[in-house]
């Protein structure tokens, strides 16, 4: 039986600000992908991303608190505020040395790194902006969360490309299981910046879409990734303590697994074995079989290499000869970013909590060169007990998490 419960969720996403707006956006299969308005995209092969719109940090914290924070830190702190409030935890009544913060981010504040380096290039060492430098470290968002809530327990940030948030969650389960901490605020945050966009454009990774109207964009699988941004924080605590205080439980984390395999820099593990291995390990740990899984959250991100490989491995795992299996590739809606795992976990937990399945596509639809536009099957009420979240990143890492319903 799972020992870890999730009792609070906070989300800042391209689908909406706050947990409820995010959930409603998920249920509608609303795309967060839109033409970029925050910087000039004319020199890039793409002009779309899943950017966070209408986020007002003042709705979460006083301006004095966030004035020097980067966008990624602001989103992270805001998500943590919502998650803590949602959990009903009275932090002041807790031993805050036994409360942890673990965040995942692939690049942290890429905009602050860029602005600081530009100030150096433009004005030389004496013109370099000291106020920007502290925000260039990837652990800045987790440190701001600690400062805001006065949480003095273990604090760490994980950078593992697209599975950064998943790796943070796995570390949290480890410290909860080892009884080092009682509660952990776990999640991820990432910001979209022009330099990040330029870097992905330079390596040829972006989906070359040039959208003309400011409407939601629904790309085709296999065309290349769509960048996203956002933050999500989960409150994880021991099931016993959640039960004792009568907390509202979204779901339980039944098991986690991570593996890796040989991969060329910038590419996914060719064999695809890690996907299969981590899923099997996670299911074995949870004591369930493929038939027991009611929902699959895939890490497909429109990249030809990943989506085809993941589709093939899930087909093997579930022995789905026709490719008719339903999967939810949430990154098709929210874009891809280092913290996407936290956002996906939030969606899975909300789905288990509401007993409403997330919109899904067929496994075969993840493969590129499909003749028809992607068809989303709508969200619907359904008995959901076990959900598998599989995640894979370029560089060769893979992680799987199994969440179970608390009902």
């Amino acid at each position, binding site marked *: 039986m799972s020992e870890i419960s999730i009792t609070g969720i906070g989300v800042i996403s391209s689908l909406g600000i706050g947990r409820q707006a995010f959930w409603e956006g998920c249920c509608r299969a609303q795309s967060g992908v839109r033409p970029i308005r925050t910087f000039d995209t004319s020199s890039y092969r793409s002009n779309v991303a899943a950017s966070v719109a209408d986020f007002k940090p003042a709705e979460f914290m006083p301006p004095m608190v966030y004035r020097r924070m980067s966008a990624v830190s602001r989103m992270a702190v805001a998500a943590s505020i919502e998650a803590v409030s949602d959990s009903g935890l009275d932090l002041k009544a807790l031993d805050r040395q036994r409360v942890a913060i673990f965040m995942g981010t692939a690049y942290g504040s890429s905009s602050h790194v860029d602005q600081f380096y530009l100030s150096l290039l433009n004005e030389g060492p004496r013109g370099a902006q000291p106020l920007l430098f502290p925000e260039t470290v990837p652990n800045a968002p987790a440190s701001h969360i600690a400062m805001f809530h006065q949480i003095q327990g273990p*604090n760490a940030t994980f950078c593992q490309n697209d599975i950064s948030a998943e790796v943070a969650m796995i570390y949290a389960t*480890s410290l909860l299981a080892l009884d080092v901490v009682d509660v952990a605020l776990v999640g991820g945050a990432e910001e979209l910046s022009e330099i990040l966009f330029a870097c992905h454009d330079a*390596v040829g990774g972006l989906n070359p879409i040039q959208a003309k109207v400011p409407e939601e964009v629904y790309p085709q699988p296999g065309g290349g990734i769509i960048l996203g941004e956002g933050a999500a924080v989960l409150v994880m605590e021991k099931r016993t303590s959640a039960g004792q205080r009568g907390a509202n439980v979204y779901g339980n984390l039944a098991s986690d697994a991570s593996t890796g395999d*040989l991969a060329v820099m910038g590419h996914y593990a060719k064999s695809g074995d890690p996907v299969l291995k981590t899923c099997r390990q996670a299911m074995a740990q949870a004591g369930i079989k493929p038939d027991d899984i009611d929902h699959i959250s895939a890490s497909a991100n429109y990249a030809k290499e990943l989506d085809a490989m993941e589709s093939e491995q899930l087909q093997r795992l579930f022995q789905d000869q026709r490719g008719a299996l339903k999967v939810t590739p949430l990154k098709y809606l929210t874009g891809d970013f280092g913290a996407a795992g936290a956002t996906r976990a939030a969606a899975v937990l909300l789905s288990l909590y509401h007993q409403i399945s997330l919109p899904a596509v067929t496994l075969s639809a993840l493969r590129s060169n499909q003749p028809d536009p992607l068809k989303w099957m709508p969200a619907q009420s359904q008995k959901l007990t076990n959900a598998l979240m599989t995640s894979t990143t370029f560089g060769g890492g893979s992680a799987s998490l199994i969440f179970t319903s608390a009902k």
Partner: protein
Amino acid sequence: MGRPVAVTGLGIFCAIGKDLPQFRTNLFKGTCGIAEVDLFDLAGYSCRLGAQIRDSGLRERLPSRQTKRISRCDLLGLIAAREALQNARIDMQKMDPSRMGVIMGGGAGGMLSWEKFRREIWQDQHRRYASRVLASAPCTLTDLIASHYGVTGPRSTITTACSSSANAIGYGFDLIRSGRLDCVIAGGSEALCELTFAGFHSLKVMSPEPCRPFDRNRKGLSLGEGAGIVVLEASENAVKRGASALAEITGYALNSDAYHMTSPDPEGMGMVRVMTAALKQSGTDPGLIDYINAHGTATKINDKMESQAIERVFGDEGLGRIRVSATKSMVGHCLGASGAIEAIATILAIDQQMLPPTVHLNEIDPECRLNHVTQTGIQKTIRAALSNSFAFGGNNTSLIFRSAGISDQV
């Protein structure tokens, strides 16, 4: 407590040692690796010093297929990882790769490569080298080590600035003691780059002379670069394969000051708490600690706070008995790699039963009244030792190592 965990291999590449024997010799001799940096243009800086690795044949140290397109940071890390595995006498053919993991601590990673790419955009150069972008992610070294050695277990990259690689070693310890893995390659790597050099320069914390931790006349830190990698194994497995333990890792703790992005808690309470928690979690009586490898950056505030914190944790008895040194005075502040490099210095101290010194410590600051080791190494019985790492963002970590086979009795 879980399974005992042994350190069976070390690998290092830094300004005072291009391999373990050279590092060991220079560490105990008190050799300073801090000199003028020429890795990038330093015009306009008031400080031009750093512990830079000088090796014109750096890329030839590994087969060319391994070094193609990788960053300086990852190159240093791969060299150190190779040495660590050789030092541990690991034969990958005889290991179960799925029971092995790679946990690295990252700092600026391949920033030096990214800076070249960014400069090309800034100069509006038409030709841009995309490979420089690929080499810049903080987790590239983790993936490269795992791929090169066929490690298929969990991999993670921790980025908590200056405590990153200390945390990586701590996480590796957890993975083995909990039974999840049998062997972990842990550590970190850092290369000097313009961004961090300009960043610390803009904060006015860099010393115009080689840094002198705990000295009354200290003027700030000296940056450095290097890689430190350790091989951690379940002690029982190490014994079975006939490997000798250089030391045991018995515990660690990490926490947050929750106070300020760049300044430590003025009472040093985060430091006090992390050392206390590490001692408690490792089941180590403070009376067993004979040596502390201090974070010792040589900034006014860090050294004072750290001294006060050590005093509060170990009391007057400990203050007089426990010897303290800051090896950053020789290798510079290697940021993401510093925790691992200092862990290696601590493990070598235990293995050799010799204390490394703080060099340039001529006049001990009365506010840093610790039992310092100065100028050169000295022989001493070291039963257990503690290594501190305190970072930007208020991230603190303490690691505890013990001489293999030492009992819990004080």
